[in-house]
């Protein structure tokens, strides 16, 4: 039969899979090229950056660009570590708070029966198509009115409204059998107890996924520092990197500097995702929108 041999999720290699490799590997390689290029650019010493014609791969890798980055920052009066501290603080608080909020909300939407549950869930689902960038002005007005302009709260609170997080966690909890929760309730456990002892350990893949998504949106967030924060020492690493790249882009040396800055932004994202990839795939299999 014509269709035999190729199938979904094969255990073994079969020569009919070869055609997919022949398409996938070149495409993946092309996707990867720009990333390799930026790695190589970040490690290029000045003479290699100036080289004409430019060479794709670095030959004598050096960390000069990274050092230069630290020096340039301290010359502006605020050491790089301040921005880095802000970014790490904001990201970790946002992730922790977001996981708590989405966990509570996801559990309530999935396992509690109350009036308005379906309405809230459908509103949240509709909000998946929310484009935050479209409402930077009203968001600014909200931030002014609740008096958090120019504080760490302005970094954290707006990013806590993450419909996709609640959506993924709720879908994931849906597949936990109601019986185990009922059993715990009969034993006298309250909701917080049930969440901590039963739901939380079983929802780890979804929590990991939401943590990654939150990290991605917080770590590289530029809007907050640009519009909602005026004091320089409260701004984040991502923002500092973006100002740096716009001021130095004209020079060739600046390109190496910018590449190094971009890499520092990218590597944490990459590492976290690689570590948690299996969790993410596990979560995504419950991600269907009805």
């Amino acid at each position, binding site marked *: 039969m014509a269709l035999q041999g190729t199938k979904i999720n094969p255990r073994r290699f079969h020569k009919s899979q070869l055609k997919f490799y022949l398409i996938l590997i070149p495409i993946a390689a092309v*996707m990867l090229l720009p990333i390799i290029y930026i790695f190589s650019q970040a490690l290029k010493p000045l003479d290699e950056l100036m080289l004409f014609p*430019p060479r794709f791969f670095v030959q004598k890798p050096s960390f000069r660009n990274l050092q230069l980055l630290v020096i340039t920052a301290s010359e502006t009066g605020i050491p790089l570590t301040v921005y880095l501290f802000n970014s790490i603080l904001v990201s970790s608080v946002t992730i922790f708070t977001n996981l708590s*909020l*989405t966990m509570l*909300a996801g559990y309530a939407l999935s396992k509690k029966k109350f009036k308005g549950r379906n309405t809230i869930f459908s509103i*949240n689902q509709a909000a998946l198509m929310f484009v935050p960038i*479209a409402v930077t002005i009203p968001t600014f007005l909200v931030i002014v009115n609740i008096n958090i302009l120019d504080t760490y709260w302005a970094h954290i609170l707006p990013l*806590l409204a993450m419909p996709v997080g609640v959506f993924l966690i709720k879908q994931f909890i849906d597949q936990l059998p109601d019986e185990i929760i009922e059993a715990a309730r009969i034993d006298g456990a309250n909701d917080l107890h049930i969440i901590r002892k039963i739901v939380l350990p079983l929802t780890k893949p979804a929590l990991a996924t939401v943590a990654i998504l939150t990290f991605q949106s917080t770590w590289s967030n530029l809007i907050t520092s640009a519009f909602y924060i005026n004091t320089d020492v409260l701004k984040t690493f991502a923002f500092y990197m973006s100002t740096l790249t716009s001021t130095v882009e004209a020079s060739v040396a600046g390109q190496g500097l910018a590449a190094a800055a971009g890499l520092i*932004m990218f590597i944490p994202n990459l590492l976290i995702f690689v570590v948690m990839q299996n969790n993410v795939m596990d979560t995504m299999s419950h991600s269907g929108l009805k």
Partner: protein
Amino acid sequence: MERVKTLFKKIFPNAKMSDSNKDRLASWSLILPYTLVFLAFIIVPIIMAFVLSFTYYDAINAPEFAGLQNYIYMITGDEEFLKYIIPNTLKFALIVGPGGFALSFIMAWMLAQIQATPRKYLSLLLYAPSMVGAILVTILWKSLFSGSESGYINAFLLNNDFIEAPIQFLQSPEYLLNIMVVVSLWSSMGIGFLAMLAGILNVNPELYEAGQIDGIKNRIQEIFYITIPSMKPQMLFGAVMAIVGAFNMGEIGVLLSGTNPTPQYSGSLIVNHIADYGFLRYEMGYASALSVVLFLIVFAFSRFGHILFGSDN
């Protein structure tokens, strides 16, 4: 105290009533923290954008009611809007949204048919560009498309005699929008792509066997009659993420060219137009009207997704 309790029980013999009230209270207190941030940073901003769109507001004086003035100006007064902004936005969104979605599906479909270990690494490579973030995307592609001879792409074209002088890719109207499309497609395989990959892997294999018996002749038929119908929910999630992703990439033109508006408005999308009026000209009322139009466009796109992949009832 005891007396009160017994009295209470006498009056309300059915104690379950208070239990269910307690439970309702518990449910609401679980969901309350999220609901508050959701209201404050999604619902309220959307309503405010809508309300402000009917006002004249310069961010200093109180908003003044202006009726439909902003919307009228959009069509009759704002020369750039109909000439550049809307065509650019639609062209960009129509290619990057459905294009990114189709690319994600095709890649996921092929990945599903190879073994688990190579699949894991190849899907990581395809996903990686989507987590690069706006800053690195800008640095990276700016450097590749740099207008001087040291720009990698210019140097490549010069060396191979395709061109004679370096091209100012990011400053020339004929290239900017196309470069934006390429860059956005490059980073379009994000969370929706992963969802669709998981969806394809979860399709019940017996359906394929049944399909063959029912006379499905080729892979294309298999995709349309078995794979897609069995993973509609993931397709819809992927579609919504693709659309939102496309609009969230809207700033890329400004980031790449370094100016807002972009050279001759060639890469200006509605998102940039909002920033232009809101933060550069302080015409918040008009900027809000533009936001409302943006919401309507996003809504129309995802409505289309629902028509294609929504559940049938």
